[in-house]
């Protein structure tokens, strides 16, 4: 019995590969704080082509950082909310003005551990650096 020709296998695999490259995007740096996102019905999907900066808030996984709410900016765990300014400024410097005008800051905060006092602090810092377009990151609500 003749074997099945595998000559076209690379083509098939490359096609699948191309498909994945197109539809997916690079993973964000892993969260080092515990975040259970709140769920929502009236959510929108952010346009991946526009710049998104992430500010995460929650209790750190690593107990060395303590048991209270900390921020995660990129890979850094920060206790001070003032660091947000620096973080956003750095991000904005790396982009053009046109990109900055459409950029969004997505706030990933834990629904139970994070209180409004902390959300307020984050928002005030963002207002300081004029990053006014924000997004409260949510997860899909399970349809009942």
């Amino acid at each position, binding site marked *: 019995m003749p074997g099945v020709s595998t000559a076209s296998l690379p083509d098939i695999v490359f096609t699948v*590969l191309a498909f994945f490259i197109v539809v997916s995007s690079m993973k964000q740096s892993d969260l080092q704080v515990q975040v259970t996102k709140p769920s929502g019905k009236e959510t929108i999907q952010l346009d991946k082509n526009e710049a998104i900066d992430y500010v995460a808030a929650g209790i750190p996984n690593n107990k060395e950082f303590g048991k209270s709410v900390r921020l995660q900016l990129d890979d850094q765990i920060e206790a001070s909310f003032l660091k947000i300014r620096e973080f956003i400024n750095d991000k904005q410097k790396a982009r053009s003005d046109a990109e900055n005008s459409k950029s969004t800051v997505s706030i990933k905060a834990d629904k139970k551990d994070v209180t409004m006092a902390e959300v307020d602090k984050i928002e005030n810092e963002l207002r300081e650096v004029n990053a006014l377009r924000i*997004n409260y990151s949510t997860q899909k609500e399970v349809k009942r």
Partner: protein
Amino acid sequence: MAKKRKTQEVDASSIADIAFLLLAFIIIATTLEKEEGVPAVLPQKRDDKVEKPPIIKQRNILEVLVNKNDQLMIEGEWDKEIEDIKPKVIEFMTNPYKDENLPIMVEIDMSTCNNQIALLQKLVDEGDDTKAKKLKEWENKKKAVKLLGSFKTLPKSATIAIQYDKGTSYGTYLTVRDNIMSGINELRNQLAKEKFGITYNELESIREEVKTDLDNDRIKAVREVYPQKIIKLPARNTGPTN
């Protein structure tokens, strides 16, 4: 003295392996998850700290309060549930029974728009730049009337205010906000469906590449009728009264 030999073919069988490795890498390193969320725009930072907030009539504010125990108060009534928010929002934004405690709806039609535009245009031409913004607003209203016919909308000062305590959990706040949005969106959907045969959500979710100017104008018109004016207020005293 070159030996004559058949050109050797490159062995292609390992290309499949290489491609599989690449595929595996891409699948691991990327994510299909889309970033979802509730969008919001923060108010601009005010230089002037003593600037007084404008006084808004009580009937023009829908007050939703969440205290630090995540209990809910709507318009001064405690013990409300999350589900109560949506009907309240819809009632507030339409005031169907001309309730005295709800905003007086403003009727917008073509002639009011034309009158206002003519009036404001004159002032702007005379050099009063402060009216330019107002002129723009009325021009947008006129566009909306063209698409929708005359409509009733909230007075300009009408606002939905979410009051919260510093200890209110973020999740509860967002749920409240989400439910308010859900009320507004229901009205928007109804209107768009009635006038254009397509819901507001469907209009919004048209992909940017295929969205026409008409779609954008329609979205703006619907927003003109049912504006999304939600403000977030840190509350001073949020203990239940009992």
